[in-house]
């Protein structure tokens, strides 16, 4: 390599190099138009820039659709400028001067990565390459055998090349790697035999076991989390998240401040307990009702889409029939016209063709009109049933929230009574001796205590209202989005369909018109 350094100046990838590389890939007998088009930088999928003495990777960002990139046998020192090439599947950076693995995080589709013969000393920064199947990092500067354990996270890895690294000379190198990477099929160009894998697993049991356990734990945790998340998502879809328990009740009584002290008043504790029980049971019924309704809504939506697809399928079949009928006739006519494109017969044929295209147009448009009418009807029905579902749901949950409010009001009245009684006692100086000290301070001023109680009451009411309005607005949002999506889809479909019919007609017409007389040889 050093010889190159002395003789030739190192390069940076520029447009000229790129252009050359692209042109090299073109097949020789490619037509002119095709050739011009395939040089279009956006459509290039493969490129090879080898032995070009490249020092720095740059200017590759316009090659959006690149899937295969070869940059081997250059003098690259740093992996950079590849972030935008997210479709890369195959990346060859072998025979360069790279020291650190980096800059590959965005290349999540990468399946084959070669870093053979570089100066890398650590395997790192590859967590996102979950698709990686073939990894070559032979002839590098890897010294720590334990570093191989890092590759355990690449679940798809099947082929690995580590040969030529310093740690390869260590005793049991191969067994160690096989034991820690049980999914490997090939290691250092050799098949991993079952017997080897078995022996390795046995030998390094003490090392791999804890690793496996740890991984299993992480996995289990992850799964649990996922399940929880999924459940929550489902509840959210049903608009009843955090209603299957005392969550709402507890949230009402957060941030109570001074009012929380009232709980220690004689009798309030019991009241609160009873209140909580009732409140939670209302919440539970609300939750169950919400889930039920959710199922109903889903069923209604899927019913609609089933019917929609049925209609569309029939439409498709019918139009297919019409078009294929037409096409068989059209094809023979066109062939005949190509054979003999002039004369009276040809003219009459052309007129006939025109006529038939008109007929086809009529047939397709009629079909489209009929179908879109029927779909419109279906959509209206769907809208009506959505309205019914949403309004009954709204009514019922409003009723349940009213129950909650009643409970809160009742509780407030009860507490107020107790407070009044105590105030009375204070006024008459009949208060018990063991009355808590901090409460005594609270009750010093009559207005403060009443205020505290009523404020906390109104806060709670507001919280209930908020939950209710959340639910209602969610319901409304759902109703609106589902409806609009359905309507939007249909109108899009209708539009594209008509556009396509027009386009189809144009093409057919052009084809017919442009049949020219075959030059007689």
């Amino acid at each position, binding site marked *: 390599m050093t010889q190159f350094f002395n003789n030739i100046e190192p390069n940076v990838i520029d447009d000229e190099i790129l252009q050359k590389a692209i042109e090299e890939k073109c097949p020789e007998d490619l037509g002119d138009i095709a050739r011009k088009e395939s040089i279009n930088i956006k459509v290039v999928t493969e490129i090879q820039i080898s032995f070009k003495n490249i020092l720095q990777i740059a200017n590759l960002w316009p090659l959006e659709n690149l899937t295969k990139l070869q940059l081997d046998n250059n003098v690259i020192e740093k992996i950079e400028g590849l972030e935008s090439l997210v479709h890369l599947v195959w990346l060859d950076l072998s025979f360069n001067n790279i020291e650190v693995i980096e800059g590959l995080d965005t290349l999540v589709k990468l399946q084959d990565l070669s870093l053979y013969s570089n100066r890398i000393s650590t395997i790192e920064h590859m967590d996102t390459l979950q698709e990686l199947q073939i990894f070559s990092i032979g002839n590098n500067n890897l010294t720590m055998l334990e570093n191989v354990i890092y590759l355990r996270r690449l679940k798809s890895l099947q082929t690995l090349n580590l040969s030529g690294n310093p740690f390869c000379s260590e005793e049991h190198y191969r067994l160690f790697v096989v034991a820690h990477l049980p999914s490997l099929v090939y290691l250092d160009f050799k098949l991993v035999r079952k017997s080897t894998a078995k022996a390795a697993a046995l030998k390094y049991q003490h090392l791999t076991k804890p690793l496996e356990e740890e991984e299993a734990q992480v996995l289990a945790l992850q799964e649990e989390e996922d399940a929880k998340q999924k459940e929550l998502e489902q509840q959210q879809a049903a608009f009843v998240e955090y209603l299957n328990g005392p969550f709402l009740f507890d949230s009402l009584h957060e941030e109570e401040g001074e009012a929380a002290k009232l709980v220690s008043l004689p009798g309030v504790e019991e009241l609160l307990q009873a209140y909580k029980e009732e409140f939670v049971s209302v919440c539970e019924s609300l939750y169950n009702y919400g889930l039920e309704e959710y199922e109903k809504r889903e069923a209604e939506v899927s019913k609609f889409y089933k019917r929609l697809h049925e*209609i569309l399928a029939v439409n*498709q079949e019918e139009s297919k029939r019409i078009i294929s009928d037409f096409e068989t006739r059209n094809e023979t006519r066109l062939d005949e016209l190509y054979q003999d494109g002039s004369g009276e017969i040809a003219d009459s044929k052309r007129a006939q063709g025109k006529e038939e295209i008109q007929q086809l147009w009529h047939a397709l448009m009629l079909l489209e009109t009929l179908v879109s009418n029927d779909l419109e009807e279906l959509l209206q029905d769907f809208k009506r049933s959505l309205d019914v579902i949403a309004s009954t749901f709204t009514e019922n949950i409003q009723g349940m929230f009213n129950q909650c409010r009643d409970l809160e009001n009742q509780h407030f009245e009860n507490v107020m009574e107790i407070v009044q009684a105590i105030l009375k006692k204070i006024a008459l100086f009949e208060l018990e001796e063991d009355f808590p000290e901090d409460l005594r301070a609270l009750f010093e001023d009559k207005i403060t205590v009443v205020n505290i109680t009523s404020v906390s009451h109104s806060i709670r009411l507001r919280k209930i209202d908020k939950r209710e309005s959340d639910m209602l607005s969610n319901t409304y949002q759902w109703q609106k989005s589902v409806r609009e999506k359905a309507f939007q889809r249909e109108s899009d479909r209708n539009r594209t369909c008509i556009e396509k019919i027009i386009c189809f007609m144009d093409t057919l017409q052009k084809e017919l018109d442009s049949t020219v007389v075959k030059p007689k040889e």
Partner: protein
Amino acid sequence: MEALEEKEEVEQPPEDVISLRISDFLDELELDAEQASVRSNETEFDWSSIDTSNLPSSYKTNSRQEKKLLQLADHFLQQYSHLCPDRKPLFIHPLNECGVQKFVSTTVRPTLLPYPDMYYWSGCASFVSNYLIMEPLKCPITPPSSLYSPTTIVKYQRGNCFDFSVLLCSLLVGAGYDAYCVHGYATLEMCSMDQTQEVCPRLKKPPEEPVEEDPNKYKIKYPSEPKSQFELQQKAKEEEEAKPTQEEEKEEEVVEEVEKPKRDSLHGLRVHAWVLVLSGKRKVPETFFINPFTGNSHSTKDECFLGIESIWNDKNYWVNMQDCRNGCKDLSFDLSNHFCWEIMFPESNEDSQLPTESPKDSTDDMQEKKKISSSFEMPLSWVERIKVSSQEYENPFPRGKKVILYDKAKQEKWAAYANTDGMVERLTVYADSDRTEELEVKEWFEHRKDLLYMREVNHQTQLITDHFNPGHPLLLKAHTYTSLEPETGHTVEFYHKARVDGLWKRSETATEMTEYFEEREDLLHKRHIKFGEREQGMEMAGTAEANARPIVQIREYFHRNPKKPADEDVEERVFKVIDDVIQLTYHLEIYDIIPSKVVFARVIGREKREGEVFLSRENTVKYQPWSSEKHKNMRYLYNLLWELRAEQKDLKQLVRDSEAEMLNILAVRENEEANIKLAVSIYSTAQRDQRIASILEAEERSSQNSSEKKSQQTGEEDESVTQHTATNSTT
């Protein structure tokens, strides 16, 4: 003994009287002709000539217990005739082959034969119906005066309906079924084993499930053409006028059809015996009848059964006390119900209720009977164990074959190995009731080495269809053809699971070949190939390749692959080999109606057309404006073209392979048909080996014969049957 003889004498007169009366009756009705016709078919067998000397002593005498039993039975009979004077005498103790009176229950000898099929009622029933030759009753309206032991019946392989029923009942009870012999009345067809009015069970189609048109199924409602209201009215009027005449015609037809089956003057009087199987034991879900002549099961509500007098098995005897005016439809088969069934020997653990209809004067007798019967136990059967050797079991047909005539159909059955081609059954379907014009012939085979199990010959379409069991070396499932000549229209079905290419059906004619696939990874499901005509001059070359039909077009159809976007998922590929055009049609998304297409063409000798783009110097491509972006990429198209060209080459080879395979199949089939081999189970007994040896001998002889006989087509009736298929295939 003396007492018995006396009784016989006593009973003789009424029977004689009845039979006399009946014979008069018969004369009157001029039924002789019919009787004669039935008999003329069968060579009369003289039962009096049978040898009874070797029979064991239990056949010739009655034990003490049996005598007591007969006494009791007589007692019962007397009471019965006293109580029900207008009913016919019961069939209780007929004479056996040695002239000794035996109680019917002791004639039933429960036996389980050591063959797997005989563990099930259907096996027993078909064995009995196949093994015995049916004899009509001497007098169709009275039960026979004698009932022979099942062993004798099995020995001589013939008997009347009572003999059939007793034998079948013995086998069924032996196999654990709750079975009973029934003495009753049935229709003429049933009694005379005349099935010509019935549809052959082989031809009975399973009740077709009405394809339910979903009323909500979406249909495109095209606006109808405007029509003149007046014209419609006029039309309706005309139709109405035409209607009455049509209806009249129809009525006439209906009347004709009703009259067709002859009214039987003895309807309801014809005595028949059959078998009743009660539900419960052996997991029988529902009570049913078995007609022993045919071995078919019938519902207890079947209209062919017109009434029941009594039933019995090896344990007891019951008299039916229910009204049979409506046939057996409304009968209850709860035998413990004493209002419905009068039991002869009440079970000891039960408190038998006296029938209320019995008048007072008989109570004493009844009580007396009860006293005796409670201590009474049915004696063991006097009949020897029924034995059927394996040779007899496997060759059940008394005349080598059995012929059953059905409505517009004829069924013939042979034992396995009886025919050299393995045929065991042949069903001929006729167009008319007189069985003159053959429509269809179905033949069933067994133990064939080539695994052929059925052959259908349709005389209308001239198509022959062979059906094979799984395991044929060529994986054949069915083969439809008119002749075994190549390229004459063949359809071959395969057991496709065993094939690598998933081919399950291929039909080939001289100009076309269609292949159907299933469960392929590339989702190909149909391939259609068009052939051109062979060029005349090519024959000079002589090689097989040169003689092949030119391939004009290959068309392939694929299912939708949900992993790909619809407009990149090919639905149809057309390779126009001669024009050098490749056309791809893509699938459609559900909301779409016009598929996108890509057409590749070679421009040599052909002008570039509108919309086509040069892909290389020789090749053009055409795509549509709505094609997927991918299909507007020239590089992609260029690569695709070369892939397709390579594939076209492979496809051509595949087609040639398919043709070769068809030729091979035909050659193999021809060879198999020319020398049919039958497989012999390794578990077969020495006797069977002997039989096989004899068959082989016969085969050799016949093959020699057939070579000699080629010129003279006529042969003896027997031999022509055995050679039937062999000659078929060679001619």
